[in-house]
């Protein structure tokens, strides 16, 4: 399987890159290429021009901005995985990163590319939605920011304006103490595409009462979704098995779950419920440990 022919340009600046995209309707941005290149090999994508953003200054790096941590779009997933800042400030992302592809693809794959490609099974978009983060984009006509919960619109599609380049991914930071996270996934083999992935982050007070909770589901849906009702319902509880089960059941029952050759919707729904409960339980246990 070989990609169809295309032209290739490696701009040195963001301005040059956005002009290339504006002038070529069938152009696509390539960052790490770990999602796009397989699609091109299978000819599911046939861009006529690839704009390689790997050599643009200032598009890579991780910075702590207080209420959020921002990633330049070209930041490699492996770099985020090794970052002490990510481990201390974004524990949920740190828990999810080992599930993203495998080491060789994380060495090339980028944070921005994973979000911009919006693969329904991708873990980084799931964490971004669960934490209610956002992305920043730039095009010839301006710049903007889009909240993650509004960004994803379907499998492999986002609300980014045509011709825009995703420049930054912003993950909100929860200030401690008492924060815990959980991340679970079901797939055919280690590091394969998730049939279902679940992410949870909670904060407990000294009495073990949940003061903040966020839970999200990916893999099973057209795009990752946060569960706002369950998240809200769990605040104020002690996150007992009973609390978790009753908060999750109706919202998971109402999700529009995908069926494909690998797993039926019924199976995915059942697994989503079980893994969401497990992620919340792990998060609660970790948060309890953080207090002692």
């Amino acid at each position, binding site marked *: *399987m*070989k*990609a*169809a*022919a*295309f*032209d*290739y340009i*490696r701009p040195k600046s963001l301005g040059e890159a956005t002009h290339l995209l504006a002038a070529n309707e069938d152009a696509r941005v*390539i960052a790490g*290429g*770990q999602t796009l*290149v*397989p699609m*091109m*090999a*299978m000819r599911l994508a046939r861009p006529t021009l*690839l704009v*390689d953003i*790997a050599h643009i200054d200032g598009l890579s790096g991780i910075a702590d901005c207080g209420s959020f941590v921002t990633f330049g779009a070209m930041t490699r997933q*492996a770099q985020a995985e090794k970052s002490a800042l990510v481990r201390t400030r974004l524990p949920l992302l740190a828990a999810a990163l080992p599930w993203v*592809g*495998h*080491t*060789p*693809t994380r*060495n*090339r794959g980028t944070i921005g590319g994973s979000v911009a490609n919006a693969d329904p099974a991708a873990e980084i978009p799931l964490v971004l939605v669960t934490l209610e983060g956002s992305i920043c984009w730039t095009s010839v006509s301006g710049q903007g920011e889009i909240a993650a919960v509004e960004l994803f619109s379907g499998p492999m599609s986002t609300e980014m304006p045509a011709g825009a380049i995703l420049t930054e991914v912003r993950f909100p930071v929860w200030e401690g103490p008492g924060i815990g996270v959980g991340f679970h996934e079901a797939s055919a*083999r*280690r*590091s394969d595409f998730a049939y279902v992935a679940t992410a949870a982050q909670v904060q407990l007070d000294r009495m073990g009462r949940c003061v903040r909770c966020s839970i999200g589901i990916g893999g099973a849906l057209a795009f990752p979704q946060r569960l706002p009702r369950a998240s809200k319902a769990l605040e104020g509880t002690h996150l007992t098995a009973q609390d978790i089960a009753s908060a999750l059941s109706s919202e998971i029952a109402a999700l529009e779950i995908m069926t494909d050759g690998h797993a039926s919707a019924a199976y995915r729904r059942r697994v989503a419920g079980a893994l969401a409960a497990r992620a919340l339980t792990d998060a609660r246990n970790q948060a309890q440990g953080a207090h002692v």
Partner: protein
Amino acid sequence: MKIDLIVNGHKRPLDVEPRVTLLDALRDELRLTGAHTGCEHGVCGACTVLIDGEPARSCLIFAVQAEGNAVTTIEAMAAGPGELGVIQDAFCATHGLQCGYCTPGMILTAHALLRDKPSPTREEIVDAISGNICRCTGYGQIVEAIELAAQRLRGANAEAVR
């Protein structure tokens, strides 16, 4: 498109179409056929090479993207023709290969693992090779090979500092 690749320490000028993967450039243009062609879409790991020292799939990178990076292939893993590196020798000793199709990818992956973690646990070894498919061995002997190589490399390093 004219590019300069750096492969196994040597500058290799090439003229390739942008759609040519690094894998095809290595095999067809440079005749370095140690990187194997499997699935060509990132699933099997047969095409694994090191890019700036880290394992990556050469079928998921167009050759033009790799300009400026140091590419290392299995051909650079032995000291000279007819010789075997420590990891390669360990694969022979434990029968860590049968047909050998997955082997270059396994060895380069193991090389990067053992450089970062001289004493990996079994779990860490299994995790490191989880992106490399082997259709022959059942993986048991591959894990053993990497354990043996780790042990020998630790021994050799201890010898060297003494």
